[in-house]
């Protein structure tokens, strides 16, 4: 399993970073899409979704998101 860092740019140019635990890149995209759909109400149109980093999953692993 890997911890994926996914950068999301919405159609309105706002941005989000989604961290998902998954076993492959394909599944990470699917999970990230699910997280975004769940998170945004009303839904937001995604312009770009990119995996920029992955780390082997283990307790304590994570990412720092600069704001």
């Amino acid at each position, binding site marked *: 399993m890997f911890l994926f860092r996914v*950068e999301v740019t919405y159609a309105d140019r706002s941005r989000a970073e989604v961290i998902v635990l998954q076993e492959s*890149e*394909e599944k990470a*995209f699917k999970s990230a*899409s699910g997280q975004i759909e769940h998170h945004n109400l009303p839904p937001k149109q995604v312009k*770009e*979704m*990119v*995996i*920029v*980093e*992955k*780390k*082997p999953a*283990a*307790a*304590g692993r994570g990412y720092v998101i600069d704001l």
Partner: protein
Amino acid sequence: MAYKAFWAETPEKLNKTELLKLEKDGLDIIEDIYRYAQTGYESITEDDMNRFKWAGVYEQRPKDGHFMMRVRIPSGRLDSEQARTLAAIARDYGRDLVDITTRQAVQYHWLRVEQLPDIFERLAKVGLSSFEACGDCPRTIVGNPLAGIDPHELFDTTPYVKQLSDTFLMNRDFSNLPRKYKISISASIYNPGHAEINDLAFTPAVKVIDGQEVKGFHVWVGGGLSAKPYLAKQLDVFVAPERLVDVAVGVTTIFRDYGYREKRHNARLKYLVADWGPEKFKEKLLELTGELPTRGEDKLVGWNAGYFTGVHQQKQEGLSYIGLSVPVGRMSGSELEELARLADTYGDGSLRTCNTQNIVIANIPNEKVEALLKEPLLERLTPYPKHFTAFAVSCTGTEFCNLALVETKERMRQLATYLDQEIELDEPIRIHMVGCPNSCGQRQIADIGLQGSLVKTSEGMKEAFDIYIGGTLGPNARFNEKLSGRVIVENLPSVLVDLIGFFKETKRQGESFLQFVDRVGKAAFQERLDAILAQLAESK
């Protein structure tokens, strides 16, 4: 072990890897590997698999029983017998593949655990080793590949590199450091050892002591790339060559005893140096080494980026060295074997690997140079490569690396070939391609850095790259800066042609890419990239 691991007294403040290292020293894995060679891949425990690094061995992607092995080549010095041994190992076990790394080491792929004991023994017979090429220990020492033959070195660093390498290799006083630890030693005035990106670096300096000018070193600590790059800081000390080992042991002892072991992500020496600052670090160092003279006159005058292609005169009259381009550092074992033959036939058997993933044949009598240049191998591994191929560096990428997001090595080679066909420049541009943020391909110090990512598109998942511009070491050392706008991989060649075309069209005569970036600024490149990407979007 001649020290007390006092951090063991507070295990609650240690990360999981630290606990593993206390349970069993990394070097103990070497004996275990002989056992695993009998019992097989499936019998390797997860903890021991993690310790394989101390033997210089990692599991390669996709973790199906194959391994990568890195062989230490301190300062890049190889003789022909060593090269033949390396070539034979590649042929017998590694699918004939040899990669030169950005730390002058050699990497194999496709190895199996049952083959490792024989490889260890073959390496040992010729004075080579993979031990501690990875892991939380002092790794291979990088340096000037031209040490001893360089007209631009203050003195030959070969004996000091060997002395320090011998001091640390298999030394259990230093086999449990908080994290990986990289050392550079060079006396070249052009900084081929990339001092600023090493945990500990020695660079040339002189100082008048008791009325006599002494040649020696300045000392840098805390540099490193990875996902959080940091330039090393110079300490206010001067080190005579005979004190180099003392000082290196002192710095390494500080790292071992004061480096951070609670969180693995801030364990590199750079975090301690950033917290302490160079003054406090120096104070602590002097407690261990005794008094050292203060800084002398720095003899670094520039940065050659570690490139030596072409035929050049050595400092020894009548001898030349020939720097060969090894595209993205990859060659076959057969090619390495042929290089060994050429080194013997035309020179004294000396080869030198470079941290730019290239190789040098040294000590060629001038009268033999012409004949050597006619050898068929030098058609591919040419001393006169085209610019982009010559200055291209790449990490391993998804071909073998578990952390990479995209393929890099063959892509960089093809991209460089394409750019060489499309653009003729009078100034080289160094392009480094990496498949993730971990910097094995040293993306941050490139003129143009390309970092891979994966983009979700309507046509499925696609590889893409971010573009960074303007990295350099030496005077005004700085890491390159990211341009906004990701480039889908199929557009990368044309986007780069356009972007580099912007440089070519508007540069002043003799202006380097870096000077151009300094003059026009990142904003000008961003504007150009925005226009290119907008045009691509329109044409879709």
